[in-house]
């Protein structure tokens, strides 16, 4: 009896995966637990394990195919087994272009239309009324039937802006799963969370001096070096503990606001073709050195694409730092389901007035983006004031 191998759901937010590489050839013997393919998800490239022993009879999906969860990607069985009957009777989702030959369309049918599309009559009419292409849609009814609900969901999507064909050539780049995830999550955040922004210019003189002392000591003892970002992470944790509304989620589907008892800070890390946010856990319970070491390790593994999806999930607050590019200040888009994100600018050498004298000073702009559904202006401002206090007098972090 042939066994279907289907696209697994590998992360909580995964909707489809790209089969980037086959690790086994057709006809080869495999055992349960063998890694048979690699799939790129919205978070990372991950291994597909076989759940059964057998011979890989057919690679149904081709490398590069983007497939929804549950799509048939391969068939296992015993050597020499005939799988045509199995394929023609297969009722799950087909990989694009992988229709069994026994079900080939009549000559007159347009190419690629031989898959029987199941659509409720109502959905078919609604699609025609709105000029929707059913072929590109996924049905949520039995056997993938496209139903009214699917059409309504499709219609509620903002209409894509028509891209004029200028006739000039361009280099097409495949949209990666990570890029799709960034697009989906940030668009969702901007559409659903009403953002407002609170900026403040922080005096970093003491922070600069303290960091210098800590790092010269670390150099002598071989300890971990601290970055300004680590200092901000630590100060954020201390401030969040005093302002729980900022460390929360607006969970309207459960009719509640979740004020988290833990502080897990996501840190935006630029990677080659995108952006990931590894999470430093329980920051309020950790010292600066520990935060620094953990952040550095996570960032390194992020850049080499080695992070596991669970290492990027569950943040309660996020920071994004573009200071290293010389950016003075910017506004960040909230990383859902967080309530706030902190944008950190560069530390600037600026003339400041102290006791009536113009003297050299260190300043850093930070901007808090707040989801107004859960954080109001005064709430956010009080958090920013606390955070500023910690950064301007880092010694108070010891209190």
């Amino acid at each position: 009896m042939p066994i279907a191998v289907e696209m697994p759901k590998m992360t909580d937010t995964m909707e489809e995966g790209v089969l980037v590489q086959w690790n086994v050839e057709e006809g080869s013997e495999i055992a349960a637990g063998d890694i048979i393919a690699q799939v790129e998800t919205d978070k990372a490239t991950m291994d597909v394990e076989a759940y059964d022993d057998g011979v890989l009879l057919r690679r149904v999906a081709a490398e590069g195919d983007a497939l929804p969860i549950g799509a048939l990607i391969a068939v296992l069985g015993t050597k020499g087994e005939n799988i045509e009957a199995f394929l023609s009777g297969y009722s799950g989702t087909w990989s694009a272009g992988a229709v069994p030959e026994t079900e080939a369309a009549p000559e007159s049918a347009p190419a690629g239309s031989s898959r029987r599309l199941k659509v409720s009559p109502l959905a078919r009419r609604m699609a025609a009324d709105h000029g929707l292409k059913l072929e590109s849609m996924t049905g949520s009814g039995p056997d993938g039937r496209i139903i009214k609900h699917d059409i309504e969901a499709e219609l509620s999507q903002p209409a894509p802006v028509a891209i004029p064909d200028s006739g000039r050539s361009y280099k097409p780049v495949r949209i990666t799963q990570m890029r799709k995830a960034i697009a989906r999550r940030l668009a969702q955040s901007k559409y659903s969370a009403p953002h407002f922004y609170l900026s403040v210019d922080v005096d970093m003189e003491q922070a600069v001096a303290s960091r210098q002392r800590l790092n010269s000591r670390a150099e002598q003892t071989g300890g971990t070096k601290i970055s300004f970002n680590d200092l901000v992470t630590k100060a954020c944790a201390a401030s969040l503990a005093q302002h729980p509304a900022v460390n929360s989620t607006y969970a309207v589907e459960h009719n509640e606001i979740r004020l988290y008892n833990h502080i897990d800070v996501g840190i935006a890390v630029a990677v080659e073709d995108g952006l990931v946010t590894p999470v430093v856990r329980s920051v309020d319970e950790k010292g600066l050195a520990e935060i620094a070491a953990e952040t550095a390790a996570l960032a390194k593994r992020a850049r080499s694409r080695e992070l596991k999806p669970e290492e990027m999930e569950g943040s309660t607050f996020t920071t994004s730092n573009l200071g290293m590019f010389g950016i003075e200040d910017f506004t960040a888009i909230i990383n859902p389901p967080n309530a706030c994100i902190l944008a950190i600018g560069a530390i600037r050498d600026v003339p400041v007035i102290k006791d009536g004298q113009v003297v050299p000073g260190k300043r850093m702009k930070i901007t808090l983006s707040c989801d107004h559904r859960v954080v109001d202006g005064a709430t956010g401002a009080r958090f920013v004031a606390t955070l500023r206090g910690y950064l301007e007098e880092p010694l108070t972090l010891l209190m």
Partner: protein
Amino acid sequence: MAQLQLREAVRAALVEEMSRDADVFLMGEEVAEYNGAYKVSEGMRDRFGPNRVIDTPISESGFAGLGLGAAMNGLRPVIEFMTWNFAFVAIDQIINNAAKIRYMSGGQFSFPIVFRGPNGAAGQLAATHNTSVESIYSCFPGLKVISISNPDDAKGLLKSAIRDNDPVVFLESEFMYGMRGEVSEEEDYLIPIGKARIAREGDAVTIVGHNKSYWRAMEAAEMLEADGYYAEVIDPRTIRPFDWDAVVSSVRKTNRLVIVDESNPFASVSSEIAFQVQSRCFDYLDAPVRRITAKDTPAPYAKNLMTYYLPSAEDTYQACRDVLYLD
């Protein structure tokens, strides 16, 4: 409004029509001396005398034919069958004479006659006494078929049936004779034949049910409401001519149809409704039409099997959830 049992509402219609029109009479087994097997005609013999409330021998074919002859000659008989199961021996009179002679005589003879009595399941009475007959009589052009679910409709529709110049098959229910309900006291209360009743408005799914099945539909709608979905419940009241407009416009609104029908499933009223709706509402359906019917066997005797055999509110509710794709 008066609170009446369904049997009292049927009686009220008979009494009113017999008082109004001397050509109307009631005939059947035990209707006079015994006051009716289900006490529908209680007191009527005393009131109208033995010439207008007439006991018959146990010979359904005979008194059905006698009624047709009377109707051909200008009277307006109401023929009571003790149950519709017993009318099978009179079926030639109903189908070959009542339904067809007006057509075959080129309109020279019509039959202003009502055949009435309880229809469908009536408890542990086994296979021969639990038949639902509406689909049988509905398939012969020339007959009107009415099936009522409550006292108010019983009164208003029976009065209309007695005044109608065509033969009417009027289906009541042993289980429902004792059911109380508000009945209009409006003088000459007539409900038009061929008009369905929207019993409950909703937008999620249409449920159609007549006679006892109407109550299963209403119970299912209640259960569905607890889930946050509002079913539209339609009691067709008249099976033939059927009020297609009511069901079609409802399904065009809800996009889903569940039918509850106590008949055996093959070629039943629910089959016809399903056919008509798919042909008239094809582009409006978001799910296949579902129906809940009696099982495809003769009615069992054992109580547990009888419960299993009949359509239930739970099954109807589940069918609604299925067509809403909720599970």
